[in-house]
């Protein structure tokens, strides 16, 4: 009962602030799974973003990047997202997006990471990773945020994400 009350207070207190990052943990097997995916299926993507040469990105670098995404996020929202593997919706989760459009997803209590990935299409075509928009200028960041907002709205309209509660950076659609 006390733990539930603490969790729900924690959740509502996050409405306009970033969470205390040190409290967000990775489940080890989940971390290994997602790190493996980033360095095989999406090989080269994070390495290019982080300037890691030679590849592959280490598991610690991936963990660190997921934490930094939350700390540096400009957008935060809670939503239920479509899971193409199970062809249904996941449970309610918290989403954080930074200026490279890397997204970290945590459970709704913001205690545990679910995944961290690079949004495929907001930076240009992503499928073979040669089209990363590596422009880190301030204005390019603003451009990307606007594009992300439009894509976010389309996903909400299509219910690729639903029960959406926009907290920072993105509009309520």
């Amino acid at each position: 009962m006390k733990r539930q009350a603490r969790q729900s207070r924690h959740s509502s207190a996050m409405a306009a602030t970033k969470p205390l990052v040190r409290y967000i943990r990775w489940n080890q097997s989940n971390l290994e799974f997602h790190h493996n995916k980033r360095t095989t299926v999406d090989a080269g993507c994070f390495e290019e973003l982080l300037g890691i040469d030679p590849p592959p990105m280490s598991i610690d670098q991936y963990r660190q990047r997921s934490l930094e995404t939350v700390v540096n996020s400009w957008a935060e929202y809670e939503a239920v997202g479509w899971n193409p593997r199970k062809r249904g919706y996941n449970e309610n989760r918290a989403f954080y997006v930074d200026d490279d459009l890397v997204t970290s997803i945590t459970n709704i209590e913001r205690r545990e990471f679910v995944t961290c990935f690079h949004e495929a299409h907001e930076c240009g075509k992503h499928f073979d990773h040669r089209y990363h928009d590596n422009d880190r200028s301030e204005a390019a960041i603003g451009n990307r945020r606007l594009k992300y907002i439009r894509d976010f709205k389309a996903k909400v309209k299509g219910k690729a994400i639903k029960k959406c509660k926009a907290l920072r950076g993105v509009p309520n659609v």
Partner: protein
Amino acid sequence: MSETLNALRRQSKELSNLLKDIQVAIRDSNSLIAEITAPHTLGPDVKVQKWALLEHFLITYMEWNQLYSRYLEYFGQSDSHFPKSWRNLRFNCDQSRIAILTGAAFEELPDIINEQLQKNEGPGEPSDPIEWFHEIIQNGVSRRFTDLHSWEPVKPPQPKTKNLNQSSYLSVLPKKEKVKRALEILDESDLRYAIAEKWRGIGRELDNHKQLLHTKFNDTDNNTQADVDLFLRNYRHATLSVSWLEQSKQNNSPRLFMFDRGSESRMPIYGDFLRRIENVELPSDQYQVVQQVLNRITNAICEIGYGNFAKDITAQDFKGGSQSPLGSDAINLIPGEGTGMCCPTLVAVSQGSSKRSKLGFHKIMQQVKIHLTNCVGTTRVVIVLCDSWDASSFMDEHFHELQAHHNKGVEFIFLASGAPDTSLSLVNISF
């Protein structure tokens, strides 16, 4: 209130803020790639390139304006239903649209947009349904964006506002000034034509890309296609991009629909439903109404699903009409507000089977029976829509009373939605 009206309300706030930033950006004399701030949209500390802000504004306005006009047709409302502030917002946004898309200061905008579109194209293919959905929508939005320059201007909301047109403006100028201005207008026309041609060129490229996308999409697996189908259907409902509203505005087939997997084969044959009323003596105009209503209902449910259809029809702000999901206003609707005149055709919409719910089948059937008693001799065709069917409960509670009405010449068409809720089938009842 309907979800659509709530969405319009939320989006109008976003658009108002964006307009404040745009009005500053338009007056800014720097080039389109100059960095500016958009304090109301992104916050005071974030920089953005002017062209990106203009693009974002135009797309946001385009989507809001389309939903605004479609809402009026779909829900059967008039413009005065909206707050005056929305009418002012629409006019002001449109003035900005015209300034951006036809002004000399923004002559290079089509080139920049085209460059961005080229950058986003690559040899790869989307790898999951959400990426496919994004690609399809992105193509559609960009394509509609290229038509923005040719939109008819929105009329000012206050009719008494003086808005001098060209000819009256010219008539007050001295002769030398008239000639100079006439030459400027010619130059401006040439420029506008050149800009319009650029947009049309981008539009043609996007059409080619769409064809390519469609070919690749047809080669994806069934699960991906089914998921994309679901997202597109939801998007279609959220933006009211339904076939009968889109087709009335353009000659070619609606853009989203070419990705609709086998929607034509999924469409129930409403002709089969019409056969139920073969023996009912109806004047030809009334028969046409029934035909129209059945056609529209089957289209609507196939495109947006029964759940969305029922939610819209039963919303407080739904008035009906020929452009609504019902296809006609020469009908009675249950549930509906007020009593009104008795019409030969009644449409009743139910959701669920709970006896306590206002929209449950039981309560809706009770209202149908009351209506038949009140409109005896006038109501000839009753169309009942439901998403759950309990045959034994129907026999116990409703069959005999309806049979009595049937014996007096009323014909009943019961249509039940299935799984997924875009399918509709006739429930066979023999009186």
